[in-house]
């Protein structure tokens, strides 16, 4: 991944968030407080000009900027969580380009950061339930000879990650929430897809889209 691709990825996430904003809010109304869509929309609407103003020297600079912007604009649970994840990814990618393997490690670092901050484990019906399988699928697909060559099957890894994230998000429907607002519903949280896991699926689908 190089800097232009990183920028394209983020812009695609922003576009996807706009497209899916209503649905995200709808999901959050069912088991949360009905603002996940507007929260992310507010965040990425601020991210775009922030990136335009930026002359990034590295892939990481792009992702770090996304993280800090989300943290200082979103609020709610998703702001610090996504923000910390992108900041952590940014730290991992100091170069002008990143190999697919390096990107995989960055995605893993992002997962570690949001797990550390939010304390959620897989199965708690959160962002983690989409992000964790996505990272696993990405690394599995990326992990083979040739991966050290920058563009090496990034498309394949991204596609695998996107499918895994989407799958993980859908799988949250069956779960009872143990973290976040949905946990207040106890058993009533079962049967609804988690908004945050759903937006995470958008993040990975965006990566697949721009790398395809």
């Amino acid at each position, binding site marked *: 991944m190089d800097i232009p691709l990183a920028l394209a990825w983020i812009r695609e996430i922003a576009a996807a968030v706009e497209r899916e904003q209503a649905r995200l809010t709808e999901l959050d109304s069912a088991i949360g407080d009905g603002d996940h869509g507007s929260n992310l929309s507010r965040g990425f609407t601020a991210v775009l000009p922030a990136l335009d103003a930026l002359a990034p020297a590295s892939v990481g600079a792009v992702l770090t900027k996304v993280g800090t912007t989300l943290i200082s604009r979103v609020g709610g649970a998703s702001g610090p969580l996504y923000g910390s994840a992108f900041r952590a990814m940014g730290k991992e990618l100091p170069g002008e380009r990143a190999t697919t393997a390096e990107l995989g490690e960055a995605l893993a670092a992002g997962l570690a950061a949001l797990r550390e901050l*939010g304390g959620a484990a897989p199965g708690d019906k959160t962002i983690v339930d989409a992000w964790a399988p996505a990272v696993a699928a990405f690394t599995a697909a990326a992990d083979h000879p040739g991966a050290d060559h920058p563009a090496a099957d990034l498309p394949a890894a991204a596609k695998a990650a996107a499918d895994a994230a989407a799958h993980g998000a859908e799988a949250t429907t069956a779960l009872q929430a143990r973290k976040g*607002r949905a*946990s*207040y519903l106890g058993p009533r949280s079962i049967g609804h897809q988690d908004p945050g896991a759903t937006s995470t699926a958008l993040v990975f689908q965006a990566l697949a889209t721009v790398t395809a």
Partner: protein
Amino acid sequence: MKKLINSPDTVLTDALAGFAAAHPELTVDLGQRVISRRARPAAPKVAVVSGGGSGHEPLHGGFVGPGMLDAACPGEVFTSPVPDQVLAAAQVAHSGAGVLLVVKNYTGDVLNFRLAAELAEEEGIEVRTVLVDDDVAVQDSTFTAGRRGTGATVVVEKAVGALAERSAPLAEVAALGERVNAASRSFAIALTAATVPAAGKPGFDLPDDEIEVGVGIHGEPGRRRERLRPARELAAEVVDTVLADHELAAGDEVIALVNGLGGTPLIELYVVYGEVAARLAERGITIARNLVGNYVTSLDMAGFSLTLTKADPHLLDLWDAPVATPALRWS
């Protein structure tokens, strides 16, 4: 959606502008979204700062003033403020004796205030945080997000605000806040759902004869639905639910808050208060002080919450201490 607003995305900005116009005794930073007292303290005192999502008015901005909060930072509707905003509130309120953050226990609030506290500490501001988690509708457990913070926030903020005015040190003020929170329990019943402006429709649909029991103040649905019943029965159920989770014994005194959720008229809240008082009397519990009205609301949601805080002479003394804020004032 029927609301007196200009547009869903300007609700907070517009409401803050109106709040600023209505309360010249307060400073409202419309850019940072921070409400603070215009008058700086004569001597350094612990700065009490709170904030959270908007839509719970008068919480928190309505409690800024002598005897209560030094500053408040309102987030978007039902969305916690961002760290920068909390930091700005802490900075403007800080007078050299440290800052106490009163935070309602929601993941978003906890995370954003935690990041803000780190930033403040980096700037050399001593920060302590009191988490308010009084809602017994939510089971408390380390494996979950824990209980929500609701009505007890008012009691905690009044108490710590009064103690801070007496220039108690930060550790002492924080310890009091934790004690008052630990002595408080709440439970809420909704007759209708709140409509988040950005969502444009009620958070949940409730048939004409049903209520949400154990509802949250963010339009989160409750733990179950029931038939609407007479106020006497609802009040009894709420009192019993709160007491079941409260170490209150006959002979104890409490501060009782019968709180409207935003769309319920005062005449109904008084009906409820009468039933609550009667039920508590049956259980041998005395209401030493009370509040009846809209204090921790959920936009236009109809319904009420009950908060009971075990009272002791020290707490009552702090409760009775002078307060002069938009929403709470006595001398």
